């Protein structure tokens, strides 16, 4: 499964990772190699086999809808690269 440059660029965009032209080429080759190897799964007959999303047979547990935490704004902002007015600060999004 050989990925085209366009495909690699699309994946990088979806993953929000900036790649140089050399990196597009380099990762493209490596990922294509890995995908070639993964192709062998197509040999397996999986008709009528259910998907396994989780190994546990326990269902998702629910809890009462009540507040059990809070008032931790300082903790939440503690590791922020940039913060102001009790919020995370980021480059302008809205014109």
């Amino acid at each position, binding site marked *: 499964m050989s990925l085209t440059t366009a495909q690699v660029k699309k994946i990088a965009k979806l993953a929000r990772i900036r790649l140089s032209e050399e990196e597009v080429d380099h*990762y493209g080759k490596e990922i294509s190699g890995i995908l070639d190897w993964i192709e062998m799964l197509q040999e*397996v007959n999986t008709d009528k086999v259910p998907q396994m999303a989780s190994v546990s047979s326990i269902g998702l547990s629910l809890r009462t809808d009540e507040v059990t935490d809070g008032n931790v704004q300082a903790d939440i902002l503690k590791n922020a690269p940039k913060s102001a007015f009790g919020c995370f600060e980021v480059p302008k999004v809205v014109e």
Partner: protein
Amino acid sequence: MTNSLTKLTISSALDGLAKGEFTSRELVESHISAIEKHRDLNAYIVDTFDSALKAANDSDSRRKSGKIGLMEGLPVGVKDLFCTKDVRSTSCSHILDGFTPTYESTVTSKLFSSGAIMLGKTNMDEFAMGSTNTTSHYGSVKNPWKRKGDATELVPGGSSGGSAAAVAAGLCLGALGSDTGGSVRQPAAFCGVVGMKPTYGMCSRWGMIAFASSLDQAGVFTRSVKDAAIMLEAISGHDAKDSTSAPVEIPQFSKIFADLNIKGLKVGIPKEYRQDGMPSEIDTLWKQGAEWLKDAGAKIVDISLPHTKYALPTYYIIAPAEASANLARYDGVRYGLRVEEKGGSLDDMYELTRSAGFGAEVKRRIMIGTYVLSAGYYDAYYKKAQRVRTLVSRDFAQSFEKVDVILTPTTPSPAFAIGEKMDPVTMYLNDVFTVPASLAGLPGISVPAGFSAQGTPLGLQIIGKAFDEETVFKTAAVVERAAGFKGIV
């Protein structure tokens, strides 16, 4: 005196502390010396020596008033991906530079409540992606073992290379690791120590920096099987904060060692684990392991796990897919590294931060994951892999109708040289024996069982039924006793 304290097992240290032969303070001090003497291994990336000494004093006081936890007073290492309150936790990635959690992971919280004392955070492959501990932002870890008459530095295995090396070299009495596709079992085998990955759900994942949520599980490194049982008991248990945490009662694992009778135990030998080109010394050790168990009264049963060869590619679709989702949060906004350019957009910030912050292996896996989940490819790859995962899991379920445990080698080779050129797929093949049990969520332990021709450790793996850690420990203890493996410490 100082030297010998680092050679103890958890079990003998607990005994010595109880008898007043030494204090927790002395234990911690001797380990701090040992760590400082062996900086070249690069096993630890953060030291917490001051708080460790204070914790030791507290432990010694508690002991005087009769309060003694399961791991009371014992110095341990903690893999960097566990969020430790007020102690830097970065999963050895540049993108989490300086991240200092304001909360404690459930597993470390339980470990410290049991009286254990953290010496520091151990080195690991970035975001737990790797089998060599050569992708860490903080440099590679060296295996304390070397080949006979050869100065070549060897890998300790990964991703929990730091924890494995630290235990092997006497830099802690036990260490926490994590295992997603083999990251506790494989480095344990390479470093000649015991490495235990429990059943998925046995330990809480709350506060663990996530790699692949349906596979990640905390694990322990120790120098004996009994030690692993004690340490696992201390960190296991249901946690309401982790919805995948199993609501099972934790047995007292440490109690099973009173009786190591395995008469009638059925041990499965899966034929598909005998690979083409497998080194004969690994096969020989595997056969020897079966003999040891047979001598102890077990019955050896040939079994088949027909989808074994599809487990690795299945894992390398599922794990990267889950990783691409779990690592989407590293965007420079709320924590860690932020890279911006003047006049740049938010999107630019995301792209520049992630490009600068992630290493090559992490980028590779995020991109594979993104691809297999993307529109047009989701069915062919991700859904397909989830179906094959069901088949891998069924293979084990069917075999466990005939046997109680399964015996396999842990790795297809002994530790290899740091820097040995390997393409990604060849590297991934290191996990061939450990990945299937991860996909099925089953407990697995690696026990150091012998040596390669060049004098480096080899391990045997025992896989058990879900939540049957007791039988896994019992079987492992029999192998351990028969093997009589002598570690560095």
